[in-house]
């Protein structure tokens, strides 16, 4: 039997090109459906876990998927904004603890999410380095965001302008990194967190500027710039410092300040039902949804898509196995002389079948090992790649 293995081993090594082609074809055939299956399962597990942990979500009426994706995964377009009035109503009802979210701007590609400390408690986010948010203009970096921005406590991160051509709009803010969160393995890792006031400053509702009644002369290179084209003589601070933090203030009624979503944490099941009932009136501009239900609906769409991918993989597999059959048939034809020689030397047909089978099984085993490795790798890195792609 060892002779048969030796022949198979030598043949596999000698016919390197054929071995490589067969192994590559089979590896792809096995790894593609396995990777898709694992990736979808992991996506489902991750999405479902995050959604199930979020009891209720309140946002402007519109796409349920859009609101859920925005509030749970910080992906997609920012939905229509609601106001702080919604949050106050929930708070006054004493049915749930509201956790506000305002996420519209980015800092070097990473979404800036304005929220309160309740969010960190709710998501079990812990500070790995640095300290919590101390004052307006501070930010906490998710672990992946910190790694990507190569920033840590004490560093600065500048937000991006909403619109480069809108000179009257809010200007970028130079955020101070207060701390870095421990990796959570969720979408929170890729986010820059600020408090709500800082998020409103980014919206242009609040600002800080030197106390002055007339035009001021600003030396070049200072942290002061014009607030808007219509008030070019009023220069606002582009960074919050110990010296200027007292000058920051907000205009307007706080109840009208914007939020993109509210996570509501009901006291109990009855409170949840009562709270949901409040949003059933037709005239209410806000909607409430159970993220778990929305994600289930979303997963149905994902699984429908996966069915097409599975069908594609099946066809691909069939074509590959036909190709493998063709290569094996051609290989046997090319090796006809060799097999005839073995037969003349007394080799049984069964032994010849054994040699060929061991060659094929070895290639199959190598392909399975490689496919497993590839699938595990995709499973480990796939979601990160997808997240990075979406952030980019």
């Amino acid at each position: 039997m060892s002779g048969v293995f030796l022949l198979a081993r030598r043949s596999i090594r000698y016919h390197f090109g054929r071995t490589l082609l067969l192994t590559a074809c089979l590896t792809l055939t096995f790894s593609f459906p396995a990777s898709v299956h694992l990736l979808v399962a992991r996506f489902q597990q991750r999405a479902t876990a995050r959604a199930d942990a979020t009891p209720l979500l309140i946002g402007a009426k519109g796409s349920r998927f859009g609101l859920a994706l925005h509030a749970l995964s910080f992906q997609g377009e920012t939905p229509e904004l609601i106001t702080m009035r919604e949050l106050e109503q929930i708070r006054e009802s004493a049915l749930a603890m509201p956790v506000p979210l305002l996420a519209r701007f980015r800092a070097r590609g990473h979404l800036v999410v304005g929220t309160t400390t309740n969010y960190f408690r709710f998501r079990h986010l812990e500070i790995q380095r640095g300290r919590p948010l101390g004052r307006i203009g501070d930010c906490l970096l998710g672990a992946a965001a910190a790694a990507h921005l190569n920033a840590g406590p004490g560093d600065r991160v500048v937000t991006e302008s909403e619109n480069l051509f809108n000179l009257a709009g809010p200007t970028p803010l130079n955020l101070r990194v207060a701390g870095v969160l421990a990796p959570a393995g969720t979408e929170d890792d890729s986010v820059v967190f600020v408090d709500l006031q800082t998020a409103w400053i980014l919206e242009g509702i609040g600002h800080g500027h030197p106390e002055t009644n007339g035009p001021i002369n600003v030396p070049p290179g200072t942290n002061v710039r014009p607030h808007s084209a219509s008030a070019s003589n009023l220069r606002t601070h582009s960074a919050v410092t110990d010296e200027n933090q007292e000058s920051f203030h907000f205009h307007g009624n706080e109840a009208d300040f914007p939020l993109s979503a509210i996570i509501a944490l009901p006291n109990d099941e009855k409170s949840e039902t009562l709270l949901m009932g409040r949003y059933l009136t037709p005239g209410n501009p806000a909607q409430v949804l159970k993220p778990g239900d929305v994600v289930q609906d979303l997963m149905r769409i994902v699984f429908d898509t996966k069915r097409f991918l599975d069908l594609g993989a099946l066809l691909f597999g069939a074509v590959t196995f036909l190709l493998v059959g063709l290569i094996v048939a051609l290989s046997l034809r090319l090796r006809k002389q060799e097999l005839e020689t073995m037969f003349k030397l007394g080799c049984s047909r069964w032994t010849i079948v054994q040699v060929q089978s061991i060659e094929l099984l070895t290639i199959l085993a190598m392909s399975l090992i490689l496919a497993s490795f590839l699938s595990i790798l995709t499973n480990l890195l796939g979601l990160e790649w997808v997240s990075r792609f979406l952030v980019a």
Partner: protein
Amino acid sequence: MIQIENLEFAYGAAGFGLRIPQLSIAAGSTVAITGPSGSGKTTMLSLLSGIFRPASGRILVNGRDLGALGESERRRFRIRTVGFIFQNFELIDYLDVRENMLLPFLINRSLKLNAAVRRSAETLADSVGLSEKLNRPVTQLSRGEQQRVALCRALLPGPRLILADEPTAGLDAANAERVMEQLGEHAARIGATVVCVTHAISLLDRFNRVLEISTFLEPT
């Protein structure tokens, strides 16, 4: 040793056929078979080795009638009794010199590959001047060296009958002389009968007996 009586064989219903009324070859003798191409020399070797089965008549080798044996018995007969040397050497490209010599042991479970066999292979390789090249791929050898590897492969199991099909075709005169000399020496040492198909007139005096195929074989 070999006794053929009223042998008849044909490739398919309307294919080439041959008939050998009577032929005897003594044990331990060396016999050259000559004749024009297509006259049935290679077919005769295939019949003597049991690869082909006669349609009628008898081929007795060491007293065994090959025509009466089934396929697996004829295969066992080939393993134990016959050593083959082919015109184109028919070495396995992906094996080295040593592994090619040991090929009959690698593919036949009834031949035990042990340390003694490995030593015999080295001794044999040494005797034909290949001891330094045992681990080389056969594709790196000259044609003369390749045929010597084929000779060693045929001799190593210690066959009682060596069938050689134009073993010097494609070799230069010096290599042809060397191969035939080594074949004769080793066959004599193990007492094997040699039946060799050849066109090389200059080598015929190395054989005990030279048979022109038309003298004993009739095409049908």
